């Protein structure tokens, strides 16, 4: 069974997205801080990562984490998962954000699964 790691500080998001993905047949792990998430990727690499951007301690912490994750394994599919409507709350034009997909929160699980299936 494919393993998906959700890194998000919002436990309700972890619960809802997690259980919906479980229901779709994925194995789901979660971390509530990026440090914990990065540690988990080092120890037991998942098949795909869903990463939030805004964390309580830093507004763009997810981007830093994205860089770290891609440094560990550049081929690991990484979805940035954010409640900002479009990309523009951050400067994506610089092209230095390492993510394979940008998913707006909330997302209907069908759409998320469609995207996931394109990668794993």
């Amino acid at each position, binding site marked *: 069974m494919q393993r998906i790691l959700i890194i998000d500080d919002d436990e*309700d998001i972890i619960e809802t997205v997690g259980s919906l993905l479980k229901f779709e047949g994925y194995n789901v792990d979660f971390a509530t801080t990026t440090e914990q998430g990065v540690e988990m990727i080092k120890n037991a690499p998942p098949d795909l990562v869903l990463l939030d951007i805004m964390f309580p301690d830093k507004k763009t912490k997810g981007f830093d984490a994205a860089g770290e994750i891609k440094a560990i394994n550049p081929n690991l599919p990484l979805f940035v998962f954010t*409640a900002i409507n479009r990309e523009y*709350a951050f400067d994506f034009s610089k092209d230095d954000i390492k993510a394979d997909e940008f998913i707006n929160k909330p997302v209907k699980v069908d*759409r998320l699964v469609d995207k996931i299936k394109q990668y794993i």
Partner: protein
Amino acid sequence: MQELSPIESSAFKSLNEVIRWFIDLRWMACIGVSLVLLFSHFLFSFYLQYKILAITTLVLVLLNSTYSYYFYRYKKQYLQRREIHLFFQVQIIGDYILLLVLVFFSGFMVNPLIFFFVFHIIITSFLFTTRIVSLYTTCLVFVIGTISLLQYFKILPVYPLFTNNSSISTQVMLVQTAGFSFLLIITAYLTTSIINKIDARGKQFEVELNRYKSLDKIKSNFILQVTHEIRGPLAAISGFHEMILRGITGEIKDHTKEVITKADRRTDNLLIIIGEMIDFAYMKSSDDSTFTTKELSVRKIISENISNVSIRAEQEDVHLSVACPRHLKIKTNRDLINIILGNLLFNAIKYTETGGNVSLIASEKGHEIHFVVEDTGIGICDNEIEKVFDEFYRSRRARVLEKDGTGLGLSIVQKAVNALQGRIIVYSKEGKGSSFHVFLPAYIEKGKIPGGENAEDFNN
């Protein structure tokens, strides 16, 4: 000495405009004087110093050609303020001297052309500081006063305007000179004080405007923050709804399912509204550095936007269709084009009843990319069509069909289209459907700030 301030002057938009205006006026003066000389010589046979007057006119023509040459040659270059200052001073002083020569040899105080000095004083006060205007006026008054006195004491000859008025008394001329000097001083005083008042008001207005702009920006950033904070919890609520509806939490009764579906729909609407507010706040809080452009595949942009609305279309049972040539490219700002297409598609789906069609067609038209979003929806009636782009405006039928809505969607679209230097046209028939035509330039280096349409390029 204080710097001259032609650029800050409220009367002119740019320095180039002033210089061009000066040169044009001078050409007109050359033509005018030449015509008068020709007419008076051949038709009226005035006794005038034609040789001297013709030479003076010729000098004016030569000087103006030189100014014109320098103007077009250095137009594109950056000139120091000091150099611009000098260029203006040379032109003004040259004009004063030539006019003085012209008038002196054609009757002096009797010549109506002397009144052009008033005009000169007014122009000078538009361009220079009060101190410089006072200096010019004083010199002028001194020079004409001296000439008049010298003529009175018969040291300088009088060149009459008409053959028969050599009898005009130099005493009368002296009185006229005094009156004229008074007129010049009054003119200088009045115009400089009016101009100073206008400039002060303009500066105050600018300060107020900047203050207002920064407040507006703070407000928009605040909206951006708040809406983001609201979006998080809503995302969780929406997720919980989906869990219940999918039966993850256990078997649910049909009625419960119905109620939760309604709750979920309202949540979705709320999310759309928040999305619009974020777009709106984004457009308002943007500054010069925001709208960079990039070459994008039109087909890819379209497919992204279609996939964003496909679930909604499925829920509403609206059929979506797309047409776009494979290799179509556009260099533009990605966020803004997504705002345009996303909002137009969402609106089209929202206001199309079950079983209807929405299509998005892109094609190349010269240097523009032409997008058409067409629907078979409720349409817009004729007297409302021009208001649909207004902020917060919602048409009568839209309000009936959909309770939740901000009326911001199309106003955001228009702002984004403006920012990308494009245009948008809407055709609609009530009850039949609407089509929105967006024309965007296929290649732009930078998007404009939506609010800054009046900001003009200095060299244009």
